[in-house]
């Protein structure tokens, strides 16, 4: 589905990462594999360091910490938030939505909109789409988009398929109307028939928590996980990304009338370095235009990898200048989306640590 937005902009992005850093080298001992094979995997996939929360830290903790940081520095005023969108698949509670939890903890005004959206690695783009739509309302002048997950709390440390890549983070993006004639193009797709490829099978209403669902099971290839842990069919997801994302982006750029080489950077969700290198090669994009080192510094922090790459790879630069970028997200659902827009001249664009 193609979408177009007029006169909307990203005013700034802040990413909160936990101070707690884990290394692939330290985690290797959990895996039932020879060290040499794990080291080869590290080299190819780009796994190295990642940031993970402690056992009692929730999305709202990271978000409140980040929003207070913005208030203290005067980059955002509490009373000017007209809509708060929180995109997460690891909510604090089943009820209420995490946006209401954050709203209450910050003491935000009552005359505003609070939305909680369940989306994973496409979540940042879905949140932007929702935020840009809300800005068409006369009464909504400023939207705060929080995209955060603490998925490290839902993965098995004995599952080499997923444990070494998962990180936690919280991105906070401020959206507002643009006085310039900017145009944002987006393209979003979904295929729920493949939802089983990336899921947490138990712990919800379909298969509620029991002692059995919490028990580690031998799932083959030397991996152990419980049904309450995140499951990923790595081969199916890899194939999905390589098959579906290039035509989506080509269609997006064609619709926007933007040649591939006019795009300064392709800022994609980052599951691992190998996947992005193959994606860049497939689309004949120079690898330097598609940064892939967030996963090695912070881990795959779900949808927040996209704003993390903005802040980590283009931090200072986006304070000074404007760049034409193509954002891309893909993951659970299965969902995938692309967005072409000019970003830059941000009020803020940085990464801080949650301690």
């Amino acid at each position: 589905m193609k979408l177009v937005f007029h006169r909307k902009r990203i005013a700034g992005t802040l990413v909160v990462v936990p101070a707690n850093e884990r290394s692939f080298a330290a985690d290797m001992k959990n895996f039932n594999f020879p060290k040499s094979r794990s080291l080869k995997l590290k080299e190819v996939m780009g796994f190295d360091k990642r940031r993970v929360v402690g056992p009692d830290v929730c999305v709202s903790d990271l978000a409140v910490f980040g929003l207070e940081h913005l208030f203290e520095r005067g980059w955002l005023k509490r009373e000017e938030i007209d809509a708060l969108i929180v995109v997460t698949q690891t909510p604090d509670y089943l009820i209420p939505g995490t946006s209401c939890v954050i709203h209450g903890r910050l003491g935000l005004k009552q005359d505003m909109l609070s939305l909680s959206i369940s989306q994973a690695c496409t979540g940042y783009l879905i949140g932007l789409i929702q935020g840009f739509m809300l800005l068409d309302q006369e009464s909504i002048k400023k939207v705060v988009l929080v995209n955060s997950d603490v998925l490290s709390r839902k993965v098995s440390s004995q599952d080499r398929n997923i444990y070494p890549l998962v990180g936690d983070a919280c991105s906070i993006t401020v959206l507002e109307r643009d006085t310039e004639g900017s145009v944002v193009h987006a393209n979003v797709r979904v295929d729920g028939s493949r939802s089983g490829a990336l899921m947490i099978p138990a712990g919800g209403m379909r298969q509620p928590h029991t002692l059995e669902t919490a028990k580690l099971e031998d799932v083959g290839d030397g991996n152990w996980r419980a049904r309450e842990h995140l499951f990923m069919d790595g081969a199916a997801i890899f194939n999905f990304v390589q098959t579906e994302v290039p035509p989506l982006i080509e269609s997006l750029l064609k619709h926007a009338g933007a040649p591939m080489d006019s795009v300064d950077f392709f800022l994609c969700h980052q599951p691992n370095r190998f996947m992005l290198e193959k994606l860049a090669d497939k689309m004949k994009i120079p690898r330097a235009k598609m940064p892939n080192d967030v996963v090695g510094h912070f881990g795959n922090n779900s949808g927040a990898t996209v704003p993390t790459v903005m802040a980590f790879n283009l931090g200072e630069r986006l304070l000074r200048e404007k760049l034409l970028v193509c954002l891309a997200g893909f993951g659970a659902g299965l969902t995938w989306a692309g967005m072409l827009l000019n970003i830059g001249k941000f009020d803020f664009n940085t990464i801080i640590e949650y301690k």
Partner: protein
Amino acid sequence: MKSIADILREIRPEFDFSASNDFLADGMLDSFDVVTLVSALDKNWGISIEGTDIVPENFKNLQAIEALLRKSGAKI
């Protein structure tokens, strides 16, 4: 330049790859080994095997890998 067999031996030295006609079904390569193999093949032949070609049937045996390399532009 290394041969396909050399690269396979580096990844899983404990197996005799000439004795199998289906490396994945026989448990000699798992999905992560395939990723490591693709990266090594790319480097060795100066190519980039397409992501959509990274499917089990292209890594079943030596003949399948050789065919994939030719399709990907490797001069072997």
